[in-house]
């Protein structure tokens, strides 16, 4: 079996770390040595983080927190000042249509270019 295949099998969880390391030890060469180091590092990291657990009940607490409040922001519809006025009044204004169209951005005047000072 080639080194690449062994590594692939190991990362696919089809081969245990021990078996992969043994098989790689039987193969001579730099790539097999490097692959064995990689397998060992992976196994050690997994062992170190094996018992890493969040505090008890933290998942449920988070789930409850997310579901308990309406944290989703309502989308903001931009209106011009004139259009905002009837909305803020709190009663219907005849002839005013609450449109969903967002307000157009204001055009800005181009700043005038400064004239270069004349040198005397």
């Amino acid at each position, binding site marked *: 079996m080639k080194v690449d295949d062994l590594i*692939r099998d190991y*990362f*696919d*969880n089809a*081969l*245990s*770390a*021990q078996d992969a*390391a043994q098989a790689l030890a039987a193969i001579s060469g730099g790539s097999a040595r490097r692959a064995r*180091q*990689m397998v*060992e*590092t*992976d*196994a*050690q*990291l*997994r*062992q*170190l*983080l*094996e*018992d*890493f*657990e*969040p*505090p008890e009940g*933290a*998942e*449920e*607490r*988070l*789930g409850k*927190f*997310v*579901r308990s409040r*309406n*944290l*989703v*922001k*309502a*989308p903001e*519809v931009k209106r011009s000042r004139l259009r905002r006025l009837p909305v803020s009044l709190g009663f219907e204004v005849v002839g005013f249509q609450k449109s*969903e169209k*967002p307000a157009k951005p204001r055009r800005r005047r181009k700043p005038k270019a400064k004239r270069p000072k004349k040198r005397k």
Partner: protein
Amino acid sequence: MGIPVPTTSRKPLEVPEQVRAWFEHPLRARQPAPLSARDWIAQTLQRHFRLFYGIAHGYFRDPSQAEDMVQNAAVKALQNLQSLKDPGAAVEWLARITRNACIDTLRESRHAATDPPEVLEQLAVPASVEIYRQERQRFLLREINALPENLAMVVRLRFFEDCDVSEIADLLGLRRNTVEVRLHRALKKLAKCKSLKLFQRQSR
């Protein structure tokens, strides 16, 4: 090295039809997110909680502070749900929000008051082997956080979620070869980290 091989068969992130329809709607930015989207985010956060908590714990020593950080990230995610383009990439998106929330808080706390002296004294003395082990884990998490984000995400899914290469590829929407390359690079970098070297020395 007698580590059991996990036999989990994980599917890529499931997105309910109603939520997907909302995400695919052309006028999504103007429509409020449906309640099912909130439920779906809550489910995703709960399912991958170990991953998000792992990110936060790498930045904060205190477990309760790390938990708070994940909650903050959840709030930020829900408030900006409209900016998520691909619901299939929600795990990566939430992980990035968690990481950014932690970095922001750390930046703010640099100018804030430090812990009271009695709390600092408690933290300075390692009370037991358990605390020592937790500290070592935290150092390792910090080293994972220090990796470039694309490598760190692959490592997190591998060690917190016990995913194999093809499952990681499915979750992140990457090619299998890309995941393998990222995993190789990350392991090569992590092999040099101090907490792992300490572990190797002790296990000999």
